């Protein structure tokens, strides 16, 4: 997975703010996930983009953060989401 990877959010995934938490529910496996503050920022950006590079650009614009660290965080976070079926990555030929 690289920053050029393209993804889609499955229609089975539902996002909801509850009290001071952000919850994700995947109806495909019936599992709930709680996002922390940064996770919620990532997800918000993910729902408005379709490549990890877009997310990187959007977050780098808003926050002062080291580029390499941000890129690594985005990739790690995306991998975790993909493992739980919360993101689908397009396979590259």
């Amino acid at each position, binding site marked *: 997975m690289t920053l050029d990877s393209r993804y889609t959010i499955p229609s089975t995934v*539902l*996002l*909801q703010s*509850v*009290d001071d*938490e952000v*919850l994700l*529910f995947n*109806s495909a496996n019936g599992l709930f996930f709680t996002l922390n503050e940064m996770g919620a920022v990532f997800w918000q950006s993910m729902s408005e983009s379709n490549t990890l590079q877009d997310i990187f650009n959007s977050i780098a614009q808003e926050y002062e953060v080291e580029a390499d660290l941000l890129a690594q965080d985005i990739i790690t976070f995306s991998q975790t989401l993909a493992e739980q079926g919360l993101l689908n990555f397009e396979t590259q030929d």
Partner: protein
Amino acid sequence: MKPKTNQPAQAALYDFLIECCQQTPNPMKLEQVSSEISDWDILVDSAYLHGVFPLLFKALKSVETIDERVMVRLKNINLQIARRNMMMTAELLSVIRLLNDNGIRTIAIKGPVLSQIIHGDITQRQFSDLDLLVEQCDMYKSLELLEGIGYLSEHPIRFLKNQTLLKVGKDFPTTHAEKNVLIEFHWRLFLDRHIKKSNINLFSDSNYHCVINNTTVETLELGALLLYLLLHGSKHYWERLEWIVDIDRLIRIHHDEIDWDVLVTMAQDMEIEFMFYLGLAVSHELFHTPLSMTIIAHIDLDHAVLKAKEAILLEIKSDTIKNEQTGLVSLENLNKILLMKDNTNGWMRHYLLTLLQIKELDVYMVNLPNFLSPLYYPIRLYRLFKLNVLRLK
């Protein structure tokens, strides 16, 4: 067993709950009344029974004097409701997608859609099932598709080809046991025996659409939705505060989008003015719902509506304090509902139809071919005999 509370504390509990349900609860008032509440369990249970727990929790977050342990407990309950609502909403969207993909126009009523429309948030309203409306001709195919994804119904879906059932019934429930989801599939919203004539176009081109999780969901046109909620609440004697909140918020948010002249005319034509004005009167009294001078004047001059409104408010207060809700099956409540009928003819008609008209349960006894449908009359008499005479013996 719950400890007995004194009268002022009981009154405080009711006042507090009503304040929490206001569009903008007054923090000063909440602080003041909260000090008089001795038993938070009763308040929490009452809010839950009235379907307004999320509103209670939201309002309590602004009250600084509440014990932290109480708030932690409330936060957990709120989270459980939110998770359940999310699960139900995901299921609703998934079922709508399935039906739409198979060419079936599907209209969602109440549940998550109403919560989204009036609160802008699917977690702010309690709901225990999902309600979907499809054309009568699509009922069988819809239930067949639902069976394909694990839903089971109490009665075989072949009954949905029975013309008598389609004529005397209005909905067909189906359940997904594993997901613990109940969906009521409606092909109409009002029974002939309850509403003399319904002139609401349920499948109107001007139906309202709302967006949940990037998915557009169709529901009733806003005026029709309000009329339906008013009838539904009156039919159930407004026993849940949640239903009154629904009316208040829908009117507050969409007042100018509703053609009130058309709505009043519809209520007149359907001969349901009493139930129509009663719901508006209760909502106006409790939550200061903005209504036109014409509507307020009508309510103020209608003694029957005013009397019923007082009875309902008294019942809500009593239920909140006793921390219970009276089931609609009691004779006492049945009589109250009958008293809500618009006139004496209405009562007589209701009694006669209750006795003689074929009901869904008569049809479910045996699935007769359509040409034998007159046999449902002796079946109804047999069922009545069995239910009443044999039980007495």
